[in-house]
């Protein structure tokens, strides 16, 4: 039954055959870059709001939108990592707020120097993330349950430690609020917090796309069992993701202190939903393994642009919820439609 006569395999002749119409070129472009969908949505939104109010498309206002989304973008970055592994993190707000309270408490009530307070705060956030990771990988609880539990626990500890009281930025060492300092670049006024945020996105874009760790994160989220059989230490990958996310949330906490010039135990009620929204608007699948961080940045910006643009357009508060809901649906439909074009 063995076949002996065998020609050298011809390179399939249709590899070269390109369909070079403009539409097909666009198809292929979008095919390779799923981030372009959300990007198109963002651009359309910016254009629309610019027409609605000329003030919208100005350097100061755009800087503002960036500053407004900075904290949520950093938190959504951590959330993206977790969602890529097919997990979900409901404790993101709790970890961020608790970390900011801890930093403030270390720096004021306990009188530690700024750098030490900051470092301890970062360690604390990382540890909280690691606790999530431990529960997910060792006790094998579903991420939803784990973070639901720790959400409750961290918020409770947060109330206890802070005594529900706000710590003012002016009582803290300058390093704590440094992230809120702005530097003018042209007409733009970037905060150091925003710069840190952009740097973090660059780092994780690189890590996900160009390191082995990134491949393992995708493989684990795509099909945990297959990744395990392929010899990936999936537990180690998952643990690293939750831990790194904790660190990111703590960095978010630092930026939060700078932005508000205070550490308040009562902020962040919407951080969970907002961060997940940014991730999903950015095109990352909640089922894991598909998506990336650039989309998340765009997703966060979309939400920021909607909120700011609607206010500038003079939409009444009661109707803003309606408008945002509608815009989200339209935005994702548009994205879906763009993807459909590709096939």
């Amino acid at each position, binding site marked *: 039954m063995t076949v002996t006569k065998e020609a050298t395999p011809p390179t399939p002749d249709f590899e070269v055959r390109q369909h070079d119409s403009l539409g097909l070129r666009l198809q292929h472009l979008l095919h390779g870059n799923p981030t372009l969908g959300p990007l198109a949505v963002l651009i359309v939104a910016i254009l629309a709001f610019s027409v609605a109010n000329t*003030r919208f498309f100005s350097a100061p206002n755009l800087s503002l939108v960036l500053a407004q989304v900075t904290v949520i973008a950093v938190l959504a970055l951590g959330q993206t990592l977790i969602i890529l592994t097919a997990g979900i993190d409901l404790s993101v707000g709790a970890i961020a707020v608790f970390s900011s309270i801890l930093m403030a408490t270390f720096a004021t009530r306990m009188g530690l120097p700024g750098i030490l307070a900051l470092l301890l705060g970062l360690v604390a956030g990382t540890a909280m993330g690691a606790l999530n990771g431990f529960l997910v990988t060792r006790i094998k609880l579903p991420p939803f349950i784990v973070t639901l539990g720790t959400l409750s626990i961290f918020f409770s500890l947060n109330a206890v430690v802070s005594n529900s009281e706000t710590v*003012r930025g002016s009582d803290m060492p300058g390093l704590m609020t440094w992230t809120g300092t702005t530097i003018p670049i042209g007409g733009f006024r970037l905060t150091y917090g925003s710069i840190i945020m952009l740097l973090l996105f660059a780092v994780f874009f690189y890590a996900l796309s160009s390191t082995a760790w990134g491949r393992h994160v995708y493989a684990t989220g795509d099909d945990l069992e297959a990744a395990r059989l392929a010899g990936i230490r999936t537990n180690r990958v998952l643990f690293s993701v939750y831990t790194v996310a904790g660190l990111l949330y703590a960095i978010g906490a630092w930026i939060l202190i700078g*932005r508000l010039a205070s550490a308040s135990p009562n902020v962040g009620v919407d951080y969970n939903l907002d961060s997940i929204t940014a991730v999903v608007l950015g095109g990352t699948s909640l089922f894991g393994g598909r998506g990336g961080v650039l989309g998340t940045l765009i997703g966060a910006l979309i939400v920021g642009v909607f909120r700011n643009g609607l*206010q500038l357009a003079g939409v009444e508060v009661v109707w803003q919820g309606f408008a945002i809901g509608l815009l989200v649906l339209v935005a994702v439909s548009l994205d879906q439609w763009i993807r459909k074009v590709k096939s």
Partner: protein
Amino acid sequence: AACGGDSGSGGEAVVGLITKTDTNPFFVKMKEGAQQAADKAGLKLQSFAGKQDGDNEAQVQAIENLISAGAKGFLITPSDSKAIVPSIDKAKQQGMLVIALDTPTDPANAVDATFATDNFQAGKLIGQWAKAKFDKESKQAKIAMLDLNANQVSVDVKRDQGFLEGFGIPVGDVNKIGDESDPRIVGHDVTDGAEDGGRTAMENLLQKDPSINLVYTINEPAAAGAYQALKAAGKDKAVTIVSIDGGCPGVDNVKAGVIGATSMQFPLKMASLGIEAISAFAKDGTKPQASSGKDFVDTGATLITDQPQAGIEAKDSAWGKQNCWG
């Protein structure tokens, strides 16, 4: 109403405190006051809280649990003034004394007594102060209104409308935020009563109209957030912020010039007075009397400012620091 006298296990009579949330420092103070008074009267305090402002159902559950625990009575800051009434009725049928704290119920006589700040009055005080200040400096006001949320809960409405009335702006329907047409109002936005919401709302309103020079804020955390937005825009000197609460960090902000004036309330006092009333009721059945001319016991609101205006009674921040949320 005959209360069974039996207060369940332990022998100590149970009293309850139901607040809107457990994280707001205002309610933390309340709890402190209630605990002190309960300890003094030898009562066992059980406290409850919703997760979020407006969380009526958690308060309904709390009342049910208190009924089940055989409490003598309880203090409540209703999250939903109207919706809570049927549950309060049930409690009263069990012979409990119910006192509303801070926020009256609707109708107000659904409870046995209300110990509250007059939120409308508190708003009016800062409105009058701002009016006097702007008149003195003969500035034309451009006002940003930073409210709580889209739900128009009663505290939110009362403070907002009180401020406008005090400032001399026709308020239209006093039960509705945002139906004014006065051009001095640049716009309303919501803050969730927290720093992050305050800052974002202020930023957006400033983009809408950079000439804003007067900012009303629902509470002091929102004011602190708004201040950061103004500072980043380089307008912190030119804009006056007024607020309501009188929390200690808020008073510090008055001293630091962040907040021009704030109306101080006295949650600790409200709660301790409330517990004392329940204790008295448990002993001999006496019910508390309302302040003269009002349908509630007014625990007062005091204007705190370091820029006193002629004809408007106020205390300075030093006094405020000593009495903050006393």
